[in-house]
């Protein structure tokens, strides 16, 4: 469990945080310059708050009242910076084993396997692609046997496909190594995909804390102008069944979806994405539609304001569906309503090229 209570004066505002984080993966969400990275730096010991206390389980990292300030190198915090920041004069293997001197933690072979780094081990760190570099940076942090893993926008600078693929690897790592993680991002969909809990920061203040799907309602009422384009990112198992030319069938759990895709031979587990605005809800099962997917779902959450409504619908994964307020009223939607979820095969996109290990 991480307990953070601190104040730190920044250029244009004061970072004031009083948090108790016990979820396995906590997202820290907020716009650029809201104090997210400074919060991580304080936890890691790279910078010190003016006042406050930082405690992980039963260990004080920092306590101004007790004059405790554990050195950064002794905190055992794995920190993945933006852009990865590999040591480019070393090999991938040397990067991965940089910290392995007096700490015991996850097995090297297991980390290499989960992140699929085997073929890269002897390669120069400077000759890696952006996505490969992020995987190595994550592996390097995991192999330092951290008590706490800090990921500071690890997808920055990656294109959409590479970003989706790396996100999938991060999820594999979090599943495999089960360590408390703080994931900083300004992407709601990434946080919904990865995190069990989210903290919303704005100008250095915590303006919300809760489960990620609740974040949306907070954002909608707090700042409508900055309401993001909502995406549903979800794991999908591609079945060997070939649906028809140009599409494949993916397993969502209890039901399947057709996905517009080419050349998926040999691929089983993938990450897929569909925009919330590309999904249609219906009270009755429609007929005579060109859309290839009509799924059964149940509304588990509704967030509405004057103009927009976002329904979280359980179709296996929870999908956010964006509809107008008037549509919600006319259909008399409420939490618990059974609905049909309609989405075109071409609206579902696969985010990666290869099969991540799960």
């Amino acid at each position, binding site marked *: 469990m991480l307990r953070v209570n601190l104040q730190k004066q920044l250029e244009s505002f004061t970072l004031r945080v009083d948090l108790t984080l016990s979820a396995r993966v906590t997202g820290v969400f907020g716009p650029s310059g809201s104090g997210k990275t400074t919060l991580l730096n304080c936890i890691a010991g790279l910078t010190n708050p003016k006042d406050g206390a930082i405690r992980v389980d039963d260990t004080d990292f920092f306590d101004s009242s007790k004059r405790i300030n554990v050195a950064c190198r002794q905190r055992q915090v794995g920190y993945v910076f933006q852009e990865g*920041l590999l040591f480019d004069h070393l090999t991938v293997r040397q990067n991965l084993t940089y910290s392995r001197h007096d700490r015991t933690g996850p097995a090297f072979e297991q980390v290499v396997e989960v992140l699929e780094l085997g073929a890269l081990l002897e390669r120069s760190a400077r000759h890696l692609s952006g996505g490969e570099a992020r995987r190595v940076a994550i592996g390097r942090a995991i192999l330092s046997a951290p008590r706490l893993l800090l990921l500071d926008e690890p997808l920055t600078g990656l294109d959409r496909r590479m970003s989706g693929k790396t996100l999938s690897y991060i999820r594999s790592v979090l599943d495999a190594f089960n360590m408390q993680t703080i994931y900083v991002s300004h992407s709601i969909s990434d946080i919904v995909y990865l995190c069990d809990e989210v903290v919303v920061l704005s100008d250095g203040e915590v303006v919300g804390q809760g489960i990620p799907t609740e974040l949306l309602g907070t954002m909608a009422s707090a700042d409508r102008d900055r309401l993001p384009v909502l995406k549903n990112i979800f794991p999908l198992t591609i079945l060997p069944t070939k649906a028809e030319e140009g599409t494949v069938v993916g397993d969502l759990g209890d039901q399947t979806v057709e996905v517009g895709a080419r050349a998926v031979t040999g691929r089983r587990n993938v990450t897929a994405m569909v925009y919330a605005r590309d999904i249609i809800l219906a009270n009755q099962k429609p007929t005579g539609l060109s859309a290839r997917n009509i799924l059964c779902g149940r509304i588990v959450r509704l967030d509405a304001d004057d103009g927009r409504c976002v329904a979280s619908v359980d179709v296996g994964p929870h999908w956010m569906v964006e509809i107008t307020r008037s549509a919600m009223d006319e259909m008399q939607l409420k939490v618990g309503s059974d609905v049909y979820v309609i989405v075109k095969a071409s609206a579902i996109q696969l985010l990666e090229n290869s099969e991540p290990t799960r």
Partner: protein
Amino acid sequence: MLAFLNSSEWTAVALSLKVSVCAMAMILVPSMLLATWLARSTSRLKACVDTLIVVPLVLPPVIVGIGLLVLLGNVGQSLAFTWWAAVIASAIVSMPLLVRTLRAGIETIDPRLQQVATTLGASPFRVWMTITLPQCWPALVGGITLAWARAIGEFGATLIVAGNIEGKTQTIPLAMYTHWQVEGRNVWPLALTSVLIALAAVFVSECLIRKGRNHKTNAAR
């Protein structure tokens, strides 16, 4: 080849090499520490320290020599007019070149790399040896070459603080100066020797920089 220089000239060459190498050994670690501190510190003292370090570079060497003579005269009479005095004079006038070159090299390194190493449990010494040093290797070698060249060519301060005692404190520049003053002595063999030593130093430094680059590349393959 041996006849190219007479025995006193060989002594001057050997003394110059000894003095300049000892001066480099004397300033290497302090320069690394200072350069690292100047590159990374946000202390208010930084500007003062920076100015103090540059002073020997901008002052006339004779003034540096007189200052040192006064200082050495006060703290240890035995050091003045010995080859150690020449070492100290060379160290002081060459140190700014090493510090400034090294500092510029360290400033080009992303400080977050050193932070990453720290979060991975590395001590400051290990961070310096495994991250800072390999990343600023060309600047270090270049800085040492510059500083060494300045040390081996040092004249004014050395003349004042160590004198021009043949066989004891007479380095190559002092020997050339003496030859130039005395009619009939040929200054060119010593001059040619100086040029050859300088060229050899530049060649070695280039090799070291290349070796560093290759080591990085090979290590990374």
